[in-house]
């Protein structure tokens, strides 16, 4: 009895104690992207293994939790899992907001896929597709994965309309506006954490433009804790990739750190002479002070990459060699394949981020970054003699046919077919043989002993020093509305120069302008560095590593302020934002060019431009399942440096009629989400006005190297996007996406053509391409596929993609009056100006994968993607018209026809096998 009484007493005491010590935890789960509530999050409290799910407003509550320290584990579809330690006391602990980071479910595409597409012009604005980031948006998810094979640009926009941030700093290239993916290429795991907005929707880092925003978050406290390693075997862009990444997570002492290393090596199965010799490194360390009130993070990353490049060729050559992947850039040197066009860059990025959580509702971010290093692109250069590129038009059978030399054409056809004496390739050994014997008395008297190279590899540099300072301020008002505001400042100084990389057996290169030498007898006219000539009496005899040809700085100074106000009531929400700023551009010549002695060295005129932007996002959520949104934007922005100067290599002259570009965009969407059924349909309408474009080329009509400056380029983009994912049965789902658009030029731009050697205006007029299509992206893309995910972590997918309305990039030259002669009929003119439309294409892709959990701690898995299962090797993915013209020899009046166009083709069947291990 006594014992029973004692036990009862003890039990009562324990119960009393327990009751006294029972508390709870509550909070609200939001997405870091937009701070919107996340419903349906599975939340587990351990120990105790209590679980609950967040409600429509994102709220959750654990009651009757004993005092102690617990782990809260959050899991939700489309979000990175999160574990938080929480101390429960006697009351219900209010965690306020728990922020989940959106996950990118699919493998982030390696942007190396896109960088393969180089054209002859380094400033080709279509080198990078815009849809690189997968996101939780269903359309973007499908488009980024499936359509990238076709160089798909979302809504037809160039990559400069997609704002790409890292840790809150917009890093689009200051010279070109292009997205900066190449800075961290190969560091997929370290940059996996991305927040994406689509279309016109504003982000927390800035208002964004018309092509959506991506913010890559590399702060180590927000990276998935643990080690990730992966090995890739592939035949698409490289043979092999290895990557190892570790993130510590936030440690008790407030420190977090992460690092990543990667390498990619080898070529692919289709294009000869290309290769990757690429590495990536990433390190970041973060310290949180005062319970996370202050956070300071330092990040360093870089991707030293050496990459042999493919260039496009004409169909005649593809037919001669029997495939569509011929690469004219390489040849054998002592039996080894050597590529003349190699991109070699290493541009480290260092970044410092400071966050001050002033209160639960107010946050201040200060970030600064510095990009430096080198960015080179090599090219074969020769001083005299015939063009050494193997697919030069005079070396093709068609040239002989045009010359009525059918026998010569037949011989050359046979040589190409048989690859007689490696006629298809660069003759490296011949270059050496020539350079070895180029010691001669004429040159020795001027430059001293040694062999003067006639051939060499130059490396054209674009070395940036890019500094950014960004301040952002976020405040959440008690009524749930939110203010985001920021200031940003950018200073960029990019040095453009060429360097002697390899003298190919010679001892020096004479730094003279060979085109000026042809046109002007004066010894000073041909001097690239007149001051050197005046000092020494002869041009520089450049050695390997020396600068040569040109050297100048491009300067950009840009500042701006922006603010957005986000407000919601009931199902209605709104974001209203504005931005204003200014850009100053100027060129600073470091050398005095002989041709332009008074207009080449020193600062150019400083060009000032006003930037502004207004944006409105409206959304209404009828229910958890249905919502609509309407967005609008108007902006004016400065032209990019690449289009601001007529011939920046030679002089300070500003592009005629240069002005700010204007963009008006509206879009509207309907979103459906019903369980696993998801859909979106959007319409968009975008007007772009007053673009400027600059190109330089050899003009066959005027027999001169010329600069061609276009202004007043207007475009209209409108269309529909739709995507749906429908669950069918037990992990099997159907998904589909459609992008239908019409992207057209809506003006006949003005142009001014000047002679590069004298700045003389040769011609002025209109480029007649109104109503022609914007190039380089399929204007119709559709995908349908099946996706299966089993309970035991198998997944399979198969997708069929269809593309149409894809157009060749037009040369404006063919659409001017200058190439029209009196002998041409209307049909001839129409033929000259026509735009080529590519054939439509079907592509079938499939993937399979599986992962295993080992001891509940380790994950081992693989994924295998096989693309273009039908092995169709005749699908054109892009290309461009050349600027040169062939003079018709049989007519009495001068008349011309275009050179053949150059094309890129999709590879046949390719695979990508990724084996990964994580813990």
């Amino acid at each position, binding site marked *: 009895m006594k014992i029973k009484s004692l036990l009862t007493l003890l039990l009562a005491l324990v119960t009393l104690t327990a009751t006294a010590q029972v508390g709870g935890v509550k909070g609200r789960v939001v997405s870091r992207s937009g701070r919107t509530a996340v419903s349906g999050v599975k939340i587990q409290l351990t120990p105790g293994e209590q679980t609950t799910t967040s409600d429509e407003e994102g709220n959750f509550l654990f009651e009757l939790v004993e005092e102690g320290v617990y782990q809260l584990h959050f899991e939700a579809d489309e979000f990175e899992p999160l574990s938080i330690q929480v101390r429960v006391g006697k009351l219900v602990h209010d965690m306020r907001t728990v922020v989940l980071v959106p996950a990118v479910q699919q493998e982030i595409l390696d942007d190396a896929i896109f960088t393969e597409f180089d054209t002859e012009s380094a400033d080709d604005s279509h080198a990078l597709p815009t849809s690189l980031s997968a996101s939780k948006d269903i359309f973007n998810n499908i488009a980024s994965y499936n359509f990238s094979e076709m160089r798909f640009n979302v809504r037809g926009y160039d990559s400069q309309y997609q704002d790409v941030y890292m840790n809150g700093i917009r890093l689009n290239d200051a010279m070109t506006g292009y997205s900066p993916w190449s800075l961290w290429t190969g560091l997929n795991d370290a940059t996996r954490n991305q927040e994406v907005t689509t279309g016109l929707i504003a982000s927390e880092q800035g208002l964004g433009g018309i092509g959506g925003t991506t913010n890559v978050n590399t702060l180590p406290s927000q990276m998935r804790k643990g080690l990730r390693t992966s*090995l890739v075997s592939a035949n698409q862009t490289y043979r092999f990739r290895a990557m190892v990444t570790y993130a510590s997570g936030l440690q008790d002492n407030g420190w977090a750190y992460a690092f990543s290393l990667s390498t990619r*090596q080898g070529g692919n199965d289709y294009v000869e002479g290309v290769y990757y010799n690429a590495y990536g490194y990433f390190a970041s360390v973060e310290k949180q002070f005062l319970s996370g009130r202050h956070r300071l993070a330092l990040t360093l990353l870089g991707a030293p990459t050496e990459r042999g490049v493919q260039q496009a060729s004409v169909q005649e050559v593809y037919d001669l060699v029997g495939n569509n992947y011929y690469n004219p850039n390489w040849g054998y*040197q002592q039996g080894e394949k050597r590529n003349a066009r190699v991109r070699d860059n290493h541009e480290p990025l260092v970044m410092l981020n400071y966050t001050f959580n002033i209160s639960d509702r107010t946050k201040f971010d200060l970030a600064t970054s510095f990009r430096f290093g080198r960015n080179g692109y090599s090219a074969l250069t020769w001083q005299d003699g015939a063009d050494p590129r193997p697919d030069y038009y005079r070396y093709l059978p068609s040239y002989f046919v045009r010359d009525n030399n059918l026998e010569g054409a037949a011989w050359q056809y046979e040589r190409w077919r048989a690859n007689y004496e490696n006629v298809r390739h660069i003759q490296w050994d011949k270059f050496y043989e*020539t350079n070895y*014997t180029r010691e001669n008395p004429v040159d020795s008297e001027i430059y001293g002993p040694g062999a003067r190279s006639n051939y060499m590899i130059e490396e054209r540099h674009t070395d940036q020093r890019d500094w950014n300072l960004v301040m952002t301020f976020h405040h959440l008002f008690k009524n749930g509305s939110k203010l985001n505001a920021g200031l940003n400042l950018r200073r960029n100084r990019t040095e453009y120069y060429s360097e002697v990389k390899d003298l190919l057996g010679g001892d020096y290169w004479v730094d003279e302008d060979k085109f000026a030498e042809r046109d002007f*007898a004066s010894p000073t006219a041909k001097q690239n560095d007149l001051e050197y000539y005046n000092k020494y009496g002869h041009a520089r005899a450049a050695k390997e590593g020396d600068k040569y040809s040109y050297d100048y700085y491009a300067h950009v100074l840009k500042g701006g302020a922006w603010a957005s106000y986000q407000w919601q009531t009931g199902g209605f929400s709104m974001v209203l934002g504005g931005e204003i700023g200014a850009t100053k551009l100027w060129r600073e010549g470091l050398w005095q060019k002989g041709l332009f002695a008074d207009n080449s060295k020193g600062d150019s005129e400083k060009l000032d431009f006003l930037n502004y932007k207004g944006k409105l996002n409206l959304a209404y959520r009828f229910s958890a399942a249905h919502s609509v949104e309407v967005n609008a934007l108007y902006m004016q922005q400065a032209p990019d440096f690449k289009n601001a100067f007529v011939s920046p290599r030679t002089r300070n002259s500003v592009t005629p009629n240069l002005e700010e570009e204007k963009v008006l965009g509206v879009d509207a969407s309907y979103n459906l989400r019903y369980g696993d059924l998801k859909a979106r349909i959007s319409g968009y309408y975008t007007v772009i006005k007053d673009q400027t474009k600059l190109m330089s080329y050899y003009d066959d009509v005027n027999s001169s190297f010329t600069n061609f400056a276009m202004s007043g380029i207007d475009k209209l983009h409108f269309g529909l996007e739709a995507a749906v994912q429908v669950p069918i049965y037990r992990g099997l789902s159907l998904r589909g996406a459609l992008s239908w658009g019409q992207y057209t030029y809506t003006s006949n731009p003005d142009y001014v053509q000047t002679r590069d050697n004298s700045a003389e205006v040769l011609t002025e007029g209109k480029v007649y391409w109104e109503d022609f299509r914007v190039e380089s992206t399929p204007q119709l893309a559709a995908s349908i596929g099946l996706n299966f995910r089993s309970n035991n972590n198998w997944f399979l997918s198969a997708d069929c993609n269809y593309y149409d309305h894809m157009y060749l990039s037009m040369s404006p030259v063919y659409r001017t009056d200058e190439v029209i002669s009196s002998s041409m009929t209307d049909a001839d003119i129409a033929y000259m100006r026509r735009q080529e439309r590519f054939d439509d294409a079907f592509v079938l892709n499939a993937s399979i994968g599986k992962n295993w959990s080992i001891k509940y701690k380790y994950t081992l898995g693989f994924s295998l993607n096989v693309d273009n299962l039908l092995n169709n090797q005749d699908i054109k993915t892009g290309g461009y018209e050349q600027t040169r013209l062939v003079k018709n020899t049989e007519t009495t009046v001068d008349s011309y026809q275009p050179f053949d166009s150059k094309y890129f083709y999709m590879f046949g069947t390719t695979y990508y096998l990724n084996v990964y*291990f994580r813990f």
Partner: protein
Amino acid sequence: MKKIANMFVVALLALVMTGCYNDFENPAEGKIFSDEDFTAEGMSYISIKELKTTFWRTTGAGTGAVASWEIDEPLYTRGKVISSDRYGSIYKSVYLYDEVTESAIELKLNSGTYVFYSAGRELFVKLEGLVLGNYRGMVSIGTKSGNPEYSNDNLELPVMIADHVFRGRDLGMQQSDTLVVNASNYMALTDDALGRLVRFENIESKFGTAPWGYNNSFPNYFANQTSYDVNSTETLNGVSFQEMIQGKPTWAAKGKLGDDKKDTYFYGSAWFTYDATDPGQDSNAALGNYVVRTSGYARFMEEAIPADGTKVDLTAILVKYTNSSGRYVTYQLTLNDGNDVVAK
């Protein structure tokens, strides 16, 4: 499991340490060819002189007519390079000289030949498959032309050049490579010397109307089938030709014709003589009178022709002009370099 992780890391590090794509071995110097290389292939040597003689015999052509001889025998020839296209006056050609037979011939190639075949270098030419042709009295080695108006074409394709032209030793230029002509021996200069490097000593630069041939006035300039006298008052694009060249008789000229945006490059012709009064025979120029013809693309084209009456030593390649009927024969001279004219 740690072993697996370690393997990944080690594999990665191993790769970081490797991967060299820029290490290429320099090729050895090019082969220096000799007669044995060709005789070993069963080829027979034919001298330049014999080649030219055979050409005229085979084609039976008059000196001005279009004529071709496609060589279908395993022959090769050899000669020393005596020209240079470095300064743009000679274009896409080398002149080969055989000191034994004292004969020279033009070999039609591509641009920048001086880079590959500098003066003094011995060259071997495999002739089988090539075409000897005649242009206005000058014989050259080339390839078959698709144009019936041309007797042959240049070997422009690098692969063709590699198949037919081979470098021998660098013999260097010798005094004996240059034929010396002066006021006492010019009458002995004949077609046998065509293609040779000739130094005309103490020859006079002459401005004015020549008494022979077309009775041209010198210096004169030629483009688009039109000839302009240096003193021409004919206006082009609002300025007279004389103004265009700023009144300075230069070796050649460049300027804009009419409303053209692009420059026209004019050939220049300058008269040098040992006897300016000799009217010659029929339509042919008198011996001792020579026309230096210079391309508008020549680097020295803006340099002045020595003033009327100036005596100079002039070294140039001797070539010949006739019309298609073989009349109006004139010896022409092509300068390698403007510095090859030295005033006395």
